[in-house]
């Protein structure tokens, strides 16, 4: 609802919005800045903002101690795998809920969401025992499956809201023309649903990337993602702010960059089809 306003008004808006934006972003900025300081500068009084001796030392220390690339690859695999797997299972379900709704559709949907409310800690032992039995402990596959199950309700729900916006008449028309169910999904529905699917994919990738309970508790060395990487830098002995900042920056940078580049899709993803 852009309206014509005076430049003064616009300048005021800009100033306020930028200040708030910078305040919200500041903790991240401060972490990134601190990662380039020495440990002593990281706690210096008064704090130094930009004028310090920039150093890459923390990054090389962190890299020397832990194999960052392996953690990164595990994170990418687990977050990506669980999202793709989730989409494969969720697309047909969401499709049928959106286009062939029954009296119970909404109940099923809400029930699915409610499974997310199980407290993870409460079921740690059962799941751990199951994982041992199935040989899934410390495997990327095991984690991929768990994260897929955790996020599946959100995926189904998001897709459902997108699909519902696709006009049913188009599908009817396709059906009249004798399109099979498979073709209907493949050639009619999919193209229209791609933006929604992309948004869903992005949001779930982020949720899976940031999941820190199961990824920490079901892995050891082989499948450990970046959340485990961070756990080795939180409160060690001695001064650690700079090294913690470097490790934190390394853990959030990939997702931050990805998120910024795909901002548009993500914004749409975050709306959950709540608004048109």
């Amino acid at each position, binding site marked *: 609802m852009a309206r014509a306003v005076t430049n003064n008004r616009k300048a005021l808006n800009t100033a306020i919005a930028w200040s708030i934006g910078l305040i919200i972003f500041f903790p991240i900025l401060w972490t990134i800045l601190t990662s380039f300081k020495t*440990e002593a500068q990281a706690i210096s009084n008064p704090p130094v903002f930009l004028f310090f001796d920039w150093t890459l030392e923390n990054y090389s220390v962190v890299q020397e101690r832990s194999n960052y690339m392996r953690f990164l690859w595990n994170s990418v695999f687990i977050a990506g795998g669980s999202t793709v797997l989730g989409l494969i299972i969720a697309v047909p379900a969401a499709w049928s809920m959106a286009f062939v709704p029954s009296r119970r559709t909404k109940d099923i949907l809400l029930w699915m969401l409610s499974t997310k409310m199980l407290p993870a800690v409460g079921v740690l032992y059962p799941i751990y025992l199951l*994982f041992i039995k199935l040989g899934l402990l410390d495997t990327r596959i095991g984690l991929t499956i768990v994260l897929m199950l955790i996020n599946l309700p959100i995926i189904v729900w998001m897709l459902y809201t997108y699909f519902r916006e696709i006009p049913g008449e188009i599908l009817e028309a396709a059906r009249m023309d004798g399109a099979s169910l498979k073709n209907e999904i493949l050639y009619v529905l999919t193209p229209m649903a791609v933006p929604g699917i992309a948004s869903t994919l992005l949001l779930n990738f982020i949720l899976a990337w940031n999941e820190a309970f199961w990824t920490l508790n079901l892995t*050891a060395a082989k499948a450990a993602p970046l959340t485990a990487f961070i*756990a080795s830098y939180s409160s*060690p002995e001695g*001064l650690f702010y700079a090294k913690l900042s470097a490790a934190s920056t390394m853990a959030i940078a990939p997702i931050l960059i990805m998120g910024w580049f795909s901002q548009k899709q993500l914004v749409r993803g975050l709306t959950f089809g709540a608004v048109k």
Partner: protein
Amino acid sequence: MIYTVSRLMGACAIAALSTAAAAETITIATVNNGDMIRMQGYTDDFTAKTGHDVEWVTLEENVLRQRVTTDISTKGGSFDITTIGMYEAPIWGANGWLVPLDGLSEDYDVDDILPAMRSGLSHDGTLYAAPFYGESSMVMYRTDLMEKAGLEMPDAPTWDFIREAAAAMTDRDNEINGVCLRGKAGWGEGGAFITVTANSFGARWFDEDWNAQFDQPEWANALNFFVELMSESGPPGYATNGFNENLSLFQQGKCGMWIDATVAASFVTNPDDSTVADKVGFALAPDTGLGKRANWLWAWALAIPGGTQKEEAAKQFIEWATSKEYIELVAAKEGWANVPPGARTSLYENPNYQSVPFAKMTLDSINAADPSNPTVKPVPYVGIQFVAIPEFAGIATEVSQEFSAVYAGQQTVEEALAKAQALTNDAMEAAGYR
């Protein structure tokens, strides 16, 4: 998707191959303490000697405990070696969860391990974990500030002296706190410190019939003393300070005295990290003249969970990491002050190490600790800063949370002790002791 699947299968194939080829890769869970991180840096030396590879899982202490306990109690087999402490070793050993460390090689010289450490890591005379480093606790103080205050630290101070000296050294305008002590909740953090303090005041956790003793005057005395001391001379926010927070305060020159683990001595005297490296003196932990000092006994040790497929390789690693040769390796590369302390008698007989300023006080502190006789009054348990029963970690964490709330000014000493008494008795009842 096809790409993902093929990658997946590829990964499986590689995994299968690597297990087929007999080259052992052992997975070691460890805590992110300085000495362990240093050990990781020397992994190549182990690989060169034995041909085995090592995968490290380095975690922060609380995460490590949670992770390792879950795995071992469900027999998950995720780790071939785990880093555990003196609290876990005898309990887990008694449960049959750990591989007994017998049949160690002659060169390893198991009798060289300090007797206090060896007995603390054994159950029924069988060693279940080899100490990587051991510690007691002692007073570390700033010699310059002590001089400025016109006082002299005795080798074996009393709590009253500590309080007097702390008040004299405190200079809040210049951010110098007379004394920094642990107040952070958690049985291994503030819980450990208040327990040894209470020991020196004549208090105990349980009487001979496993009744909680928080309703006794000794506990009230100890806790009141601690709270008064810290409000007079402690740093702001001490209710959330643990070992690491205090270490960093001391290194920045913000503490006059710090009573904590003896291993900290090498960090505070290391000029790379510490601004006060050349001004630190050491003394035994304080007492109140009742015969027990406020010092604990602890070791970080390496143990092999039962059920590992790689027992031999794991044993080789433990022999390497806790050997005399490892100590020499570190000494040669980084100097004697940086070797893992408190584990072997021979280290303290080595003239090179005796010249390290804190060596003697560390050994004296370790020798002053007696886990089988920790308190003034008799107790049914062993352990100084802990009670060696499986329920203790849970109980003590909750008790120390009540105490931390006192330190933060959220409740009174009396309220906290009453709650501690109730919850401890409740938990002991649930566990079937009473």
